[in-house]
């Protein structure tokens, strides 16, 4: 059974082909490398936007662009089954857009062996497109690994300070997380009796014959902590700030922005719908650990002096909200979590990119050694303020982030009001660290260190080559903020058709 080729195949294959073409173009010189690699990023983006516009599933809330190809592994129930539903679509588009921005920025970087660097990035991009397009759980996992391995290489080879330690630590943590979640997925495969890795088949089997309580406890536990490590659930998050601090900016953009969402996506799309009882059994764990993300990591973020580490911690903090949205198990909470994942992906990618631009001008990530940059680089400061305000969900630049957080907050009130009261302190904490960072880097007077640096380097404002990728991210962020229905309506349909979210909704809705 082989369907025709769909745009999803191209979106996955083009970056992969471009990756090898880039290696080959390395012999032809820098411009060739840039053209080939940027094409490899741009085409999937166009395809993703086309998919976004033309998305129209036959069944409301179902999958569109579905294709299935045999891979020779039918015996174990694996086939290349691709498609997008309302949950996957916005993330797929976000992955493409962030990839384009990261690619554009990487293509003009001064990295050694540029063609190999872009090779890694393009392979990663291919994996990312695949993760959100997979219906088959095996391929979902496979594409994640495809994207993960180049990340380690990029951190280890092109990373900054402490790169080998960071790469080692990231590898240990993320491999552990991936292994735990793989064990969970295999448990599902075995225990469901579906003999298939296909998500739709699995879902049908498990709806007919749910797992026993014991099995669901340990299977969900494996998935929760496996995915949890990948999403930097507290206290398993320490790889994240360190890794992002060391990672080259484009790798950090793609990982923090997109790849990290893999775990949350897995929970929303696979773990919770397949094991509906699991969230209830692990509820206390999820809530307390996610609150740890918001409050404890939030406070730790305030203590950071290194700009990039601070961004790393702040992104860990925001993941706590997404976990809480999932724990609420309602359409409002989960759609809030997905919108937040999309908005956060765009925002954090923007901020990592801007932080590297700041580094080029100040030669440091230490915020104490900066100051007064807004005079020399007003446009850069405007972009950074915009990005920071988006990250703290200030309506305007952060309207999309606001919709996400707001949905989560509303669902938390209906779920457990006390959790909301603790979690909402995050809006104060994040304002404190964001404004501190803005003030330290851009306002006030120039520090002595910065004046020293200026003797050797002339500080210029953002160039157009730098502005374009940043603008791409900001425009999409604004667009989603002002027209949230472009992602929320299909998202809603998908979640409403998922019994596990919709029933909880009905029960809670009945209370008033």
């Amino acid at each position, binding site marked *: 059974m082989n369907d025709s080729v769909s745009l999803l195949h191209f979106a996955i294959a083009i970056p992969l082909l471009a990756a090898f073409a880039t290696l080959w173009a390395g012999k032809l010189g820098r411009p060739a490398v840039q053209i080939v690699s940027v094409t490899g990023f741009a085409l999937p983006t166009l395809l993703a936007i086309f998919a976004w516009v033309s998305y129209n599933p036959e069944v409301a809330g179902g999958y569109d662009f579905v294709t299935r190809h045999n891979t020779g592994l039918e015996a174990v129930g694996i086939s290349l089954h691709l498609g997008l539903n309302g949950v996957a679509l916005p993330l797929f588009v976000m992955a493409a857009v962030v990839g384009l921005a990261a690619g554009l920025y990487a293509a003009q970087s001064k990295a050694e062996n540029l063609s190999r660097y872009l090779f890694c990035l393009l392979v990663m991009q291919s994996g990312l497109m695949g993760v959100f397009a997979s219906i088959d759980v095996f391929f979902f996992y496979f594409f994640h690994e495809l994207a993960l391995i180049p990340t380690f290489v990029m951190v280890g080879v092109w990373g900054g300070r402490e790169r080998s330690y960071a790469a080692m*630590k990231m590898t*240990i*943590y993320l491999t552990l997380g991936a292994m735990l979640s793989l064990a969970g997925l295999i448990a599902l495969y075995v225990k469901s009796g579906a003999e298939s890795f296909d998500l739709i088949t699995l879902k049908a089997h498990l709806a007919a014959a749910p797992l026993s309580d014991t099995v669901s406890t340990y299977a969900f536990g494996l998935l929760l902590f496996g995915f949890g490590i990948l999403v930097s659930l507290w*206290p398993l998050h*320490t790889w994240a700030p*360190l890794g992002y601090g060391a990672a080259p900016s484009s790798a950090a953009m793609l990982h923090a922005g997109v790849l990290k969402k893999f775990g949350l996506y897995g929970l929303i799309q696979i773990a919770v719908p397949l094991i509906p009882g699991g969230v209830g059994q692990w509820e206390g764990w999820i809530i307390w650990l996610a609150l740890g993300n918001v409050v*404890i990591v939030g*406070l*730790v973020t*305030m*203590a*950071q002096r290194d700009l990039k580490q601070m961004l790393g911690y702040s992104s860990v903090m925001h993941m706590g909200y997404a976990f809480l949205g999932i724990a609420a198990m*309602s*359409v*409002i909470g989960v*759609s*809030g979590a997905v919108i937040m994942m999309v908005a956060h992906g765009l925002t954090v990618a923007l901020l990592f990119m801007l932080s590297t631009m700041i580094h080029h001008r100040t030669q440091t990530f230490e915020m104490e050694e900066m100051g*007064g940059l*807004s*005079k020399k680089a*007003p446009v850069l400061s405007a972009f950074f303020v915009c990005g920071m305000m988006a990250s703290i969900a*200030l*309506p*305007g630049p952060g*309207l999309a982030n*606001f*919709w996400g957080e*707001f*949905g989560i*907050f*509303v669902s*938390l*009130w*209906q779920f457990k*009001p006390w959790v*909301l*009261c603790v979690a*909402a*302190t995050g*809006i*104060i904490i994040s*304002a*404190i660290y964001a*404004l*501190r960072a803005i*003030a330290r880097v*851009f*306002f*006030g*007077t120039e520090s002595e260190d910065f004046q020293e640096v200026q003797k050797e380097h002339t500080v210029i404002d953002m160039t157009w080559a730098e502005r374009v990728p940043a603008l791409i991210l900001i425009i999409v962020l604004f667009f989603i903020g002002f027209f*949230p*229905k472009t992602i*929320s*309506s299909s998202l*809603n349909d998908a*979640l*409403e058709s998922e019994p596990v979210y919709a029933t909880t*909704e009905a029960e809670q*809705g009945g209370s*008033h």
Partner: protein
Amino acid sequence: MRRNGALASGVSVGAAALILATAGHIIFRLENFEFSSNWIQLGPLSLDFGFLVDDLAKLMLFVVAFVGFLVHVFSLGYMKEDPNKARFFGGLSIFMFSMLGLVMANSLVTLFIFWELVGFSSYMLIGFYLDKPSAAAASKKAFIANRVGDFGFLIGIAMAIGLFGTVSLTEMRELVVSGEVVVGTAALGLLLFCGTVGKSGQIPLHVWLPDAMEGPTPVSALIHAATMVAAGVFLLCRTGFLMTADALNVIMWVGVATAIYAGLTAIAQRDIKKILAYSTVSQLGYMVAAFGLGSLVALKDNPGDAASAVVTGGVAAAMFHLTTHAFFKALLFLGSGSIIHACHHEQDIFKMGGLMKKMPVTFACFTLGLAALVGTPYLSGYFSKDAILALAVEENMTVFYLLVFGAFLTTFYMVRLWKIVFLGKANSENAKHAHENGLVMTVPLMLLAALAVLGGYAGIYPEAMAPLVDMGDAIAHGEHHGTVMVHGIGAWIVGLALAWVVYGAGAKEDRFGGPAYAVLQKKFFFDEVYDFYIAKIQQRVALTLHFFEQIALSGLIIRGAAGVAGLIGIGLKSLHVGSLHQYVYWFIAGLAIFWFIAG
């Protein structure tokens, strides 16, 4: 446009003029209307983007558009030589846009979105002088204090959705009126009130407002006196039907406490803008108290109808005072801006003096604004303050006497300022060389002065805006007119006479000293307490957590399972010896580590 200040200022002022014209059209030509369209659907929750234009919105719209336009014109003169005026006018335009959205918002969520945006534009404009560390600190403080308030506001919105299933103000009101939803808890009202406490500078979050004077003076006039800070009062009026008697009592007392506290503090300040800022805080306290008092009266008189009445006495009195206050306080700030501009950015009143003759137009306008603020009979502030006092007589005599005392304080600190700044002789070189500013700055002053004088007469308002003002006026002239007038004028006379006797014309030094006065100068140590909390507690907790993060998580767990196992072994061994001594040692060791980090 960033590089072309003239163009930017032209566009911005043009936009303000257009806003004024459009607002005029909405107010005078259009009936009350509501427009809404679905913005986002989250599960069963549908959030709309929409406008609700009713009497309340119309009056507020007029205040914002009119004062906004005058401040834009004034800024043309005030910011003429500033190299960054493009950024200034850009910020001002963002503010106008957001404020209009806030005024016309038809749901709590839309309102909250614009609420955050006005906060952001305020942040940008307070920190306008980027290289001044004090400005950067003040803008940060303003934003964070507001976020603390928004924390409650946001939870309140979530709670409202839990109760009503909608955030549309009209739908919520209908549900309350029809009795389908009974708001049985004060929590909802108080959570929403948190937003007001932040935005309108009520105790204990008022600390940001005086510091916000770091921004350019036109910003202080528009945002931090006339419009944005009054948005908190507007929010109360919008959500009045969600309040219970308990909530209203709390709101009333917070307002009264703020009014008195800020009045006392204003007496001891030296910076002309800080005095005006504390005066603003104090008047905002009056408005909040007015809302609480009036709504309590309405609730007592007619519990069934209190929610359905779109305009209660509290709303009318609060909005009446908000309107007159917007006129005279914007006037006072612009006047102080005119003075500061003429004195080359001198803000210390004891370094001014004798400005009456040098700046006659500013002097005349400022005096009229001041007279209106202190409640001189037959000027605007007199009527709007009387309306508040009249409600207090009806509801609570203690509050009445406190508010009369507050009125006395207002007269006292304003006459102090007036006598020191305008009379006598110049006390500094800057003041000596002061001269009157051009028409672009004085004409807005004159227009505002006219409104400060006449704003109390309901008759001058066109019919479309009259309902609230009429009602406010009626309250002021109600059955308690006699009591209120005697006390109000009494406070005015005593304040005026005392200040006149105590302070010398164009004084060089303050009259008082001593510990009690120092408490006033130090603003009752609010800043010190907060600074202590931030520096010694919050920051240390953050650093401690960071320390554990580094040690416990990064260091041990990853450096090897052996390390962890070893550590656990040691830990278990020593924790389970069962000897009290050991526990004490561990306790002391823990304390020592803690002290090492925190100390």
